[in-house]
């Protein structure tokens, strides 16, 4: 690889990494307005309003806990209670699934804003991300405060926001797919569910058959979950499990941002 290629590649990556962040800061007021509106619309007519956004995932925590710990009394060999392990992974996954599913339709849902007027389209994929990340971070903090101890609350919120940040390039990719590749967009919700089964969330990585264990490295979500479980519950994890998703993230940022900018002039007409 020549020097020129390397420098060109690194500038693409740099643009990809800085692009969404710059957009976030430049249009912060606008993003705040849209996120707040989304909260309000989804809970309109209720008496406790935006509290429902936190109450919904919180109730799910209670439901899982009730099912696994009280009804099924699932017990696994190991240091940690299975229900705790399950909740740490599952609640994080629920956020991931919500962000990805909503990203698919975000360019269509908000089309009224940019179809016939000037609008910074590049902020739109960030809206479902923030709308999901904020309440889930609160619930996650409360949950870890309960499971691990009050000291883990802040750590929990930061970890979940970190995971959300990792999703940024995927929101852009999914938004593009939702607008331009409608057939793929129809199958993605199914693929997102499949990804959950292929990731050690409802089971522990050790429970994966020995022959299949090496293939877990192909799933960045499995890596991220291992890191999450490792940090929160003191389970073993290694640096490679953090490095692999980080490298992939850099690549995806460059790819998704480049693609988004390239397709931008076509978006109005694609509606």
């Amino acid at each position, binding site marked *: 690889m020549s020097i020129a290629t390397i420098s060109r590649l690194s500038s693409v990556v740099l643009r990809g990494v800085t692009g969404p962040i710059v957009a976030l800061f430049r249009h912060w007021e606008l993003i705040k307005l849209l996120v707040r509106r989304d909260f309000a619309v989804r809970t309109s007519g209720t008496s406790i309003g935006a509290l429902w956004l936190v109450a919904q995932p919180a109730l799910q925590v209670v439901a899982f806990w009730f099912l696994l710990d009280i009804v099924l009394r699932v017990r696994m060999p190991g240091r940690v209670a299975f229900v705790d392990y399950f909740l740490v992974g599952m609640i994080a996954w629920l956020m991931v699934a919500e962000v990805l599913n909503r990203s698919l339709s975000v360019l269509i849902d908000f089309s009224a*804003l940019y179809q016939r007027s000037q609008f910074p389209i590049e902020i739109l994929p960030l809206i479902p991300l923030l709308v999901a990340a904020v309440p889930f971070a609160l619930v996650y903090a409360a949950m870890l405060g309960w499971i691990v101890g009050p000291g883990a609350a802040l750590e929990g919120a930061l970890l979940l926001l970190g995971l959300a940040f990792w999703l940024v390039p995927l929101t852009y990719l999914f938004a593009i797919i939702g607008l331009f590749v409608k057939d793929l967009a129809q199958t993605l919700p199914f693929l997102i569910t499949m990804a959950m089964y292929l990731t050690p969330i409802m089971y522990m990585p050790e429970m994966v058959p020995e022959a299949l264990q090496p293939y877990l490295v192909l799933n960045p979500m499995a890596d991220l979950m291992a890191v999450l479980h490792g940090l929160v519950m003191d389970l073993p994890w290694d640096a490679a499990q953090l490095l692999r998703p980080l490298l992939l993230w850099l690549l995806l940022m460059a790819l998704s941002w480049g693609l988004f900018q390239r*397709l931008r002039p076509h978006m109005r007409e694609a509606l």
Partner: protein
Amino acid sequence: MSAISLRQVEKRYRLYRHGFDRLVEALTGRARHTPIQALHPISLEVEPGEVVGVIGRNGAGKSTLLKLIAGTMPPSAGEIVVNGRVTALLELGSGFHPEMSGRENIFLSGTIMGLERSQIEALYDGIVDFAGIGGFIDQPVKTYSSGMFVRLAFAVATAVEPDVLVVDEALSVGDGAFARKSFDRIMAFRERGRTIFFCSHSLYQVEALCTRAIWIDNGQMRMVGTPADVIAEYSEALAGVPTAAQPSLEVASQQPQGSASFRTVEVEAEGARGRTVHLLSGRSDLWVHFDFASDPAIGTPTVAMEFKSSDGKVVASVGTTHEGVHVERDSAGNGRVSLFYPRLPLLRGRYSVVAHLLCERGIHVYETVEGAAQLVVAQETLEQGVVTLPHRWEPRAPKQVAGVGE
């Protein structure tokens, strides 16, 4: 520095069979669409303070040109530079979020316009007041009537004075009093030397307001020049394209608020009075009677009228503004004025009367009634054409040819 500068700007729309083709084309650069040329390359410089009117038939590419200048659509080729803040009154309220309240949409639009929160807060009361939305301001805009929606959209869009204003078709928005109010606001921009770029079917408005006119025909700039020149050429080209005249005179049931409307327009000749009269060319006298109602709070309206031949061409027109005639009206705002043509010089044919009711300056149109009345003109002589012009013949002695021998 020009206010608007277009260099070889053109627009091709692309037709795709699937959304996927669009993606593939954007990624590979290989064309997978059927192009439609909406606008051929156009170059144009507009100086600050100019008022440019774009005329042309429907589908000629006027709106495309406006959208390109407004920046709501990218050009396929060429370069567009607009200096200063540009405000487009094209599809008003298109940037509104239907679920958001009027208040939130003001902040949303203001933020998109590049205003700080504190600036929007400073403008807020003025916007709500101008739009006249009142207690609905905290309701989602999807619950607004179309009138309220467009009033709010106009108030927000024009809350900050633009350097360049792009307007589609109507120089006024909404109906009745608001139409007048919005028109006055646009005129105030013009008087303060802002650049205005608008398209209109009203040749009259283009001629009255513009410093320059552009004629767009089939996606090409057919002519640029003074409004008088361009309109003359355009009208010439329009001749022979008949326009449908739909008689649509309804009697206003109530006093219009902040506006004015005709109550009746009647013609009278040869002892008959009504919507249609028969005349004899060069013999019959013609009366046209206008009866209107207006809000006493506004200035006294002015009246204008056109004769249109059956092929849709304007044969002659008159207006009280330009002739300095003051129209009388009573304290309730009702007014009448009559127009008299002695021995009507129109030649054989059918003519329709188009009546206009305008503001006191003769610019903003409150109402236009196409085919307000019909004239059926018969003729005893063999003259050809549409009108007998004032003339006289002078018999002269034959010119003496210089003799050879002198």
